[in-house]
């Protein structure tokens, strides 16, 4: 890796949505397509101001649905463009069909998601149910803890997605309202070219392949340009579908290497680093009780860990930053010697043995001969507040489980009227 000099940054007051819009402004995608389904975020409102003011040369398409938003960026990315969209909740659910197509066509799209509850009842407040509904689509999924990380993750996501070892779409998730609507101090690059030219290396680089003895760009190119026209999105039957799915999976499991590299390079540019890019530990090494979470609640749990540490509890925190591909090895390494692991899931278990993050964590730890006790706390559904006191009660309970005073359970709900 080349030596990277730290870039000049400026301090701004931005909410999470604005942080996304500023990141997109600094990246200057070729195409942004979006639709304001309920619930809508102000991401594309801010971004369309950058378009209207001539600060970006992006083609902004106000499509007629979220399904078309993702379909249009699929077309844009297939044409070799750098493409971006944003959505949440119902919009993400409506995109579901095309999520799978975007990933399997190996298109490096970036999508910001202010995670919110799914209907019914219609709610619009923070909840990871929307992204959990989309977690099997073969995308890379990164969770941000605050507005700063939202800005950083969007920029990093383009570099990860477009890396030729990866070529996959990336979801940058952050809790609706708690991050999307809360203003925070955010450092942004002073010079847009640090992002566009220095970090991303100019326009998207299109991979080339040998086809019929000729060098061909892997993009929809007209005959005036390409020696061999491509057929993209063909019918793929029993004799090849499996192999193509395997290539998709290989790329996904290769992504952590790139995510780690990008995290390091970005750290040199900004001074900000998010663990190893996949997970981040907080006071975890000597802890007996480990908390595991994703998104905004990680910030609250840092405070909870500090408070409980002061009271003598040996508690620490593992933040999952990259949720897909799931960092199985890192989770095992971080949690292998813990007595009790408490997973915090902002999504309903929907009939499974526990909520989604819990399933991944417990499955990863099953490989160990001596396994920690793993329990799941389902919290904050539909935007229900998860204040420190509530989480402290959970830590107290985890402590009692570690002492054998409370019988372990698979999952229970926090902060709900039962």
């Amino acid at each position, binding site marked *: 890796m080349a030596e990277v000099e730290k870039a000049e940054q400026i301090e701004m007051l931005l909410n999470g949505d604005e942080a996304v819009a500023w990141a997109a402004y600094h990246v200057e995608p*070729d*195409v942004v*397509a979006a639709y304001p389904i309920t619930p809508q975020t102000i991401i594309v409102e801010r971004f369309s101001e950058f378009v209207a003011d001539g600060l970006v*040369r*992006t*083609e902004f*398409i*106000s*499509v*007629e*649905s979220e*399904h*078309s*938003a993702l*379909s*249009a*960026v*699929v*077309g*844009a*990315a*297939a*044409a*070799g*463009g750098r*493409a971006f969209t944003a959505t949440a909740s119902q919009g993400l659910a409506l995109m579901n*069909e*095309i999520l799978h*197509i975007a990933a399997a066509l190996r298109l490096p799209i970036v999508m910001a998601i202010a995670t919110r509850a799914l209907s019914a009842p219609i709610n619009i407040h923070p909840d990871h149910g929307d992204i959990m509904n989309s977690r099997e689509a073969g995308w890379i999924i990164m969770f941000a803890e605050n507005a700063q990380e939202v800005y950083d993750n969007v920029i990093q996501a383009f570099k990860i997605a477009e890396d030729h070892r990866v070529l996959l779409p990336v979801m940058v998730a952050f809790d609706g309202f708690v991050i999307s609507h809360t203003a925070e101090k955010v450092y942004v690059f002073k010079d847009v070219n640090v992002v566009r030219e220095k970090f991303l290396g100019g*326009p998207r680089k299109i991979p080339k392949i040998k086809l019929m003895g000729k060098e061909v760009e892997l993009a*929809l*190119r*007209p*005959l*005036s*340009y*390409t020696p061999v*026209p*491509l*057929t*993209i*999105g*063909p*019918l*793929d*039957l029993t004799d*090849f579908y499996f192999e193509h799915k395997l290539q998709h999976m290989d790329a996904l499991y290769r992504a952590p290497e790139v995510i780690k590299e990008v995290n390091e390079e970005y750290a040199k540019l900004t001074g900000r680093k998010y663990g190893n890019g996949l997970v981040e530990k907080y006071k975890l090494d000597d802890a007996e009780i480990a908390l595991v979470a994703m998104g905004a609640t990680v910030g609250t749990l840092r405070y909870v860990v500090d408070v409980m540490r002061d009271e003598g509890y040996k508690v620490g925190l593992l933040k999952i930053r990259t949720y897909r591909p799931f960092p199985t090895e890192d989770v095992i390494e971080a949690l292998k010697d813990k007595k009790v692991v408490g997973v915090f899931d902002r999504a309903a278990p929907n009939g499974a043995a526990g909520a989604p993050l819990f399933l991944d964590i417990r499955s990863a730890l099953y490989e160990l001969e001596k396994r920690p006790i793993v329990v799941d706390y389902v919290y904050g559904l539909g935007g229900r507040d998860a204040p420190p006191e509530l989480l402290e009660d959970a830590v107290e309970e985890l402590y009692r489980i570690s002492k054998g005073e409370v019988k372990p359970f698979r999952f229970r709900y926090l902060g709900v009227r039962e």
Partner: protein
Amino acid sequence: MVKLKTKPPTIYEIVKKPDPLLSGHRMCAGCTAPAIVKLVLKALPSLDNVIVVSPTGCLEVATTIFPYTSWAVPWMHNAFENAAATASGIEAAYKALKKKGVWGGEVPKIIIFGGDGGTVDIGLQALSGMVERGHNIMYILYDNEAYMNTGIQRSGSTPFAAATTTSPAGKVIPGKIEWKKPISLIMAAHMNAYVATASLYYWQDFVQKVLKAYYYEGPSFIHAIQPCSRGWRFTEDLGIKLTKLAVDTCVHPLWEFDPETREFKVTGYSAFLAKHPEKILPVEEYLKLQGRFRHLFKPVRRDDLIKEIQDRVMKDWHFLLKLAGLE
């Protein structure tokens, strides 16, 4: 006024051009869809700057079975309902890349070939959005009037009384009980698209409309009737004849809408029929060749239904003549 700009090619010139859709595809014997694709693409002055998009459908699955493809032009399929949105994104990407100086050529002309299901039903929203936003994209509807790819289920484009696998001709219900959705009028109502209907038999009329759509700097929509031997149940040699009869009976009249002059114009042989209504053939001539309408003739002749169809066709025809200022 939407103009031709170049002289339409002669049939000899068309035949001599290399095929944009190569042989070896698995469309059914007697299918008229490949002929539509070839006629449209060969009518163009050049294929150098063209990108083709197709929604899911017969044409898509039968021409692109991996590792083979019949497409000698760049081609993309995304899903069933989103060809228009996908094409919008492709066009937008080239516009941005050109603005940034990354793409040195012209923005390619995007051409969509979509069946009636992916256009009239599930794809209508994306298509309407594409037209409203004014993308420079040609949309060619090959209308075989049912979901032929999935086994002949009824679509919004299936005509009244046609038997399909989901609107079978039963003892009580005689096939589809609703009328066909007037997709081309819906497209014309957007007011900013060049819209035309077309028939393979009247190929000169078709070719002129293709060129107008090609040169029009905005959305265009051409609705070609596409007889399907499997779905309409006729022998493989009758496809082109049916594209003629569809026009000659006024079931599928030839017309165009010019978004610049706001004029509807009846074209080709239909313009002749407007002047010589006595030459209009009875719908029965069209219906009787198709097995999907067999129950109108056997075991008992349903004069009531045949008359209902005839009356509706003439009602729609006179409505068109009024739109075109001919009545």
